């Protein structure tokens, strides 16, 4: 990143003037904190004591044998407190909020993972917490809303636009323009105006640093390839950036292929085009929105589009400027996995390794599975399991079509109505 927060031609800070002071304060405090060893120590301590880091690197002998190609290792971010890598980021930003002396955090959330992570850290650090969430997402992901409320967070339904993540993000930004002197906007992925992409990527890069060390311990070398799912891009940045200058390590991002290539059916921003081909007919194209320049799914008029993925955390309309830049420079290869392949990969990991990945992470697995059989057995491949899949029971049950689950819910409701 250069000093203005650019990664190649992506990034920057495109925000309403009212946010300038707070953005500058954040930038300054973040830089100071980065150089402050006591902050770094506190960060490391909280990651260990609260979230249980380091997370392990798990060898998958069964799956490796089944696929007959490279040896597979999983980086287990699902074992973090709250069940996803999102925790790394909220711990970092939460401690920064304390440092800045602010009392309240604002967060946007799509599926609810980042909302829960924010509510958890707010409770832990004694901060107020307001979470913006699309009204449709609230309907679809109410269990997460329930936990946020139980944790003491205020959950504000966003009824504008498509009533999903993008609208929640806009609304959180609006709150911030109103409340910035006392509130911090805790962005959940490596998007947004500078220094958010850099900062989130940095807090997440503990994933990659650990992976590097653990690879040496487990197989005495760096991995030959690293796969991660790409929504906003934070788990991918987290595991990949520490390998950026190790050019022998292949980096592969997997985005949501959804149901198909029609607008609104996917969240394929990068893998179907080279960013150079700046044509709006491509799936994603360069744009400047929500505070930063990157690749967005948009129409010819520059209106952002609706998206879809079976994994709610991957249906973001934009992508981290860091990812966009790495893809453009061919340091990162982007591929997409469709919903049905994702369910297959999900089931494969359950059956053969006893690990339940988030549907987001199952994209990384699906992507890896599509390539591993062609890789020589001597290679070692790391897949980032960004989160756990318990949360996805409603989606998975629909996808595999288990009528018993519906019957269970009916009974629960009958019971509940009686009492």
């Amino acid at each position, binding site marked *: 990143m250069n000093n*203005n927060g650019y990664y190649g031609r992506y990034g*920057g*800070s*495109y*925000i*309403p*003037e*009212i946010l*300038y*002071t707070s953005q500058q304060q954040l930038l300054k405090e973040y830089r100071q904190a980065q150089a402050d060893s006591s902050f770094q120590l506190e960060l490391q301590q909280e990651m260990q004591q609260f979230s249980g880091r380091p997370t392990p690197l798990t060898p998958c002998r069964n799956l490796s044998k089944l696929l007959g190609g490279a040896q597979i290792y999983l980086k287990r971010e699902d074992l973090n407190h709250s069940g996803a890598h999102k925790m790394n980021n909220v711990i970092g930003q939460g401690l920064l909020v304390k440092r800045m002396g602010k009392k309240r955090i604002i967060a946007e959330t799509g599926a609810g993972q980042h909302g829960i992570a924010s509510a958890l850290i707010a409770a832990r650090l004694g901060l107020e917490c307001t979470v913006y969430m699309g009204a449709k997402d609230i309907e679809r992901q109410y269990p997460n809303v329930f936990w946020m409320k139980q944790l003491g967070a205020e959950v504000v339904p966003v009824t*504008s*636009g498509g009533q999903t993540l*993008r609208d929640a993000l*806009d609304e959180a*930004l*609006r709150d911030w*323009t*109103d*409340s*910035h*002197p006392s509130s911090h906007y805790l962005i959940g992925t490596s998007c947004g105006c500078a220094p958010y992409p850099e900062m989130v990527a940095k807090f997440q890069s503990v994933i990659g640093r650990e992976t590097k060390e653990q690879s040496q311990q487990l197989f005495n070398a760096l991995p030959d390839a690293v796969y991660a799912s790409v929504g906003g891009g934070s788990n991918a940045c987290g595991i990949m950036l520490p390998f950026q200058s190790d050019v022998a390590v292949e980096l592969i991002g997997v985005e949501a292929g959804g149901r198909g290539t029609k607008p609104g059916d996917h969240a394929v921003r990068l893998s179907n085009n080279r960013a150079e081909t700046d044509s*709006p007919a491509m799936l994603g*194209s*360069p*744009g*400047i*929105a*929500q*505070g930063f320049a990157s690749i*967005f799914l*948009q129409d*010819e*008029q*520059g*209106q*952002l589009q609706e998206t879809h993925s079976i994994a709610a955390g991957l249906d973001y309309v934009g992508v981290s400027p860091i990812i966009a830049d790495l893809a453009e420079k061919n340091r990162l290869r982007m591929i997409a996995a469709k919903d049905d392949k994702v369910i297959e990969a999900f089931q494969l990991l359950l059956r053969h390794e006893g690990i339940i990945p988030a549907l987001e992470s199952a994209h990384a697995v699906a992507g890896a599975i599509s390539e591993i059989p062609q890789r020589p057995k001597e290679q070692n491949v790391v897949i980032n399991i960004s989160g756990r899949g318990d949360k996805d029971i409603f989606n998975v049950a629909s996808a595999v079509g288990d009528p018993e689950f519906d019957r269970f819910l009916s009974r629960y409701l009958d019971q509940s109505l009686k009492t």
Partner: protein
Amino acid sequence: MSNDRTPETSQLQQFIQQERKLKPILLMTHVVYGYPSIEDSIRLMETLLESGVELLEIQFPFSDPIADGPSILNACHKAINHRPQLDHCLKAIESFKQRFPNSRILLMSYLNPLYRYGLSKLVKEAATGVSGLIIPDLPLEQAEQYRKDCELAGIDPIWLITPDTPESRLVQHCEAATGMLYCVSRRGVTGKTDSQKEDSKQIPTTTVSLRDYLGLVAEKSTVPLAVGFGIRERHQITMLQGLADVAIVGSALLDAYDNGGLRQIRQLITTLRGKN
């Protein structure tokens, strides 16, 4: 307040200063192109221009208007369903310019639709009808080429400043300003918040009083000042007299239109002008 320190005064600035010699304060009304439909929005603009507003701010809608509150946000989202096109919008503005020579038109939009269109190209093409451009998510730091393009095309890039803008940065903006400065009177987005919470009897400000804030800006600035966000009633405009050159009415106008159509719009303008 404007004074004459700038060497070359822009068209827009000259217009405002001219008008101000006749009136204590001017009115800038804000509408969304394409809301409730392309045609109706054009009729609304015509009505406003006919009613004699000095400045018309036309917002070309974007799907993610992060600095706008519920009324305008909603209007933008509805407008997008009619697939508004920037070139059509520019054409409409050009025709207004010819039909209503006593008003000036400003085009407001977020960066992305303009960026997709090509910002340089837009600036050039807009020059035929548009006096100034307002892009709330394009900060001064990112605007070198844009400013050059504007200067070349003879369009004013309108900068926004807020009560939270630190003095050093205020000075930068004042130095960069041509045409006018858009003074946001408080934190938050357009429309709602303060003005709704605190019974809309006052122009909402943050910690500094509005008088001090605008006084400071006037001191540093050579261009006219427009004050926006939250203006709903005549007395708010009266209070601004002597502090600013232009009062901006946005959400209130949309709300009036939604409640009673063009009739209500004419009524509101009359009320705001203090003519009844």
